[in-house]
């Protein structure tokens, strides 16, 4: 199985690299540094939310409320700003509020033992509703330029977007935790067999609880970044992002049943989706076709490896039979 893992990872990463190379050669304006910045900004929310989502899906659960948490923190950010709080206070506050939203999810799921899919569909509606309560139909726009500018800007005006540092740092932290620490090991065990994990002394409920808190906090942070990027705090910010994130994580080879998957695969999945969409848009392929490509990619990414291995198996068996006959 670990072998199959490796090939899956390399496959998706290779595919991503291939798409990037082909696109820079074939698509006009794809390889420019400005387009690179645009792409990084486009994948920023998906990639950040995908990090804790990967952990959660590896443990066999799901969090569909992330986009609504994002909307809630965005709304609150506008509200705080209107009420004269300083931005330096607002940012940590929003992250904490995101974490609190995660605490509620975590409590319902691990404390009361409710299924996460059902709970987070409920809080998806709840948090988005609260976002509307906070800001209503309004939008708050006048955030300070040194912050909004930082999010959309590049390091020293060059080719490397500022937010890329954030992405790299967080991805490294999450990657190391998942792949090289006891906590990471326990996540896979929980996802594959929670009872056996419990018998091995792993605190299943507590671990899952904290994952939801982290997921909420990251969603809160992304709410802040989203607001600053578009200089617009609104209740409907990020609506629908949850499906894009889940799609990217699954595309990256994480099993929806838990216990399988790797972070490099997920990162490649996010980059692949964003790069393809960017390239297709530059080629004036319509938004509708983007839908079809995204969907097909998602299905094919799991289907193809399965098909290949089953064809290989049949072929081997046939050869065996022939040699026996």
């Amino acid at each position, binding site marked *: 199985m670990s072998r199959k893992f490796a090939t899956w990872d390399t496959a998706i990463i290779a595919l991503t690299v291939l798409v990037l190379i082909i696109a820079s050669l074939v698509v006009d304006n794809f390889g420019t540094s400005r387009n690179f910045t645009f792409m990084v900004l486009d994948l920023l929310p998906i990639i950040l939310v995908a990090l804790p989502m990967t952990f959660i899906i590896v443990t066999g659960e799901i969090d569909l409320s992330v986009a609504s948490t994002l909307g809630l923190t965005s709304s609150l950010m506008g509200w705080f700003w209107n009420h004269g709080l300083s931005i330096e206070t607002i940012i940590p506050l929003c992250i904490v509020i995101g974490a609190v939203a995660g605490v509620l999810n975590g409590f319902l799921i691990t404390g009361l033992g409710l*299924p996460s899919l*059902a709970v987070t569909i409920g809080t998806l509606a709840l948090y988005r*509703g609260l976002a509307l309560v906070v800001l209503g139909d309004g939008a708050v726009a006048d955030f300070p330029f040194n912050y909004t500018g930082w999010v959309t800007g590049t390091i020293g005006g060059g080719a490397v977007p500022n937010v890329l540092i954030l992405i790299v740092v967080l991805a490294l932290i999450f990657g190391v935790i998942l792949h090289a620490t006891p906590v990471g090991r326990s996540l896979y065990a929980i996802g594959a067999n929670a009872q056996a994990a419990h018998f091995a002394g792993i605190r299943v409920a507590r671990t899952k609880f904290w994952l939801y808190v982290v997921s909420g906090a990251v969603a809160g942070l992304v709410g802040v970044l989203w607001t600053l990027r578009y200089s617009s705090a609104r209740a409907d910010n990020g609506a629908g992002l949850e499906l894009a994130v889940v799609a990217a994580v699954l595309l990256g080879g994480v099993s*929806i049943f838990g216990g399988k998957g790797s972070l490099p695969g997920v990162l490649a999945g996010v980059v692949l989706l964003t790069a393809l969409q960017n390239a297709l848009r530059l080629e004036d392929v319509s938004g*509708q076709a983007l839908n079809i490509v995204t969907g097909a990619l998602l*299905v094919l990414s799991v289907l193809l490896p*399965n098909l290949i291995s089953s064809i290989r198996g049949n072929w081997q068996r046939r050869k065996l039979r022939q040699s026996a006959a």
Partner: protein
Amino acid sequence: MTPAAARPPIKFDILKTRELGIVLALAALVLYTTINNPRFLSGQSVRDNLLNTAILAVMATGQAVVVITRNIDLSVGSVLGISAFAVATVMSDHPGLPMIIAILVGLAVGAAAGLLNGVLVRYGKVPALVVTLGTLYMYRGITYSWAGGSQVNADELPAHFLNFANDNLLGVPWLVLIALLVVGATTWVMRNYRVGRELYAMGSSPPAAELAGIKVARNLLGAFVLSGALAGLAGVLFAARFGTVDASAGTGYELNVVAAVVVGGVAVFGGSGTVWGAGLGALLLTVISSALAVLDINQFWQQAIVGALIVLAIGADRLVAVRIARSLRKRDAHV
């Protein structure tokens, strides 16, 4: 988790069923709303509520069957869209066609979409959530590409098609009758026929189902085709009821449908819950949103309240399940 099949003495059964909780919640909600605004129980209002539930309940039925097999069908909203657009296009091009043809077209489109889902899940060995998340995008994209910016308007549709949404049999609208029939028949089959029990078995333990010699492939395709076909049927009802159909019809419905199923007590891990529970879930969700509108609750609070109620409903359901588990242990106890 509750036993779908455990059948202690009848009295016990009614007190413990998870559907009872929904019925009680529904009754309380209707009562409270009616006290505040008696018009809530007026003929027109009840009719509107039932009509609004019908479409959701039809989709929830198919979804419940799929969820019982430990799968999920997220593509239903997009299937509704493609079917509604197909039917509206056919009916506006051939206004002479009878209603039954419209229904058959919708069922066929939906069944084809469901079949593709099922084949990918079963033969492609791709998890249902991945497949149907993918086809959610694909079917929607196909509808968009087909429709372009165009829209089928009410004035292009034949009158008998539009009237179908308002006509009734003995005072009960056709839409509601169809929904009742779909929910009732499916519940009955799931409870009393071999194929129904096999679907429960498949969801309860997929590997055991294979070993037990259950025709897993056939049943699974059947479940997905049913879910697709019912989403297709919902598309026809949607087109007839709303008259205006564009490529975005039914966007985001999948979450409502899954919410209805879950609120209705069908466990997302498969193997337990009932179809009529899912139908009740659909009714409850619809009544909640219309009650909030009637109670004149601030528009901005409405969504938050719906969310909170969904969470509450799941929590209450869990409470019932825990109590059943405890009584089970007591019954076995010999200490």
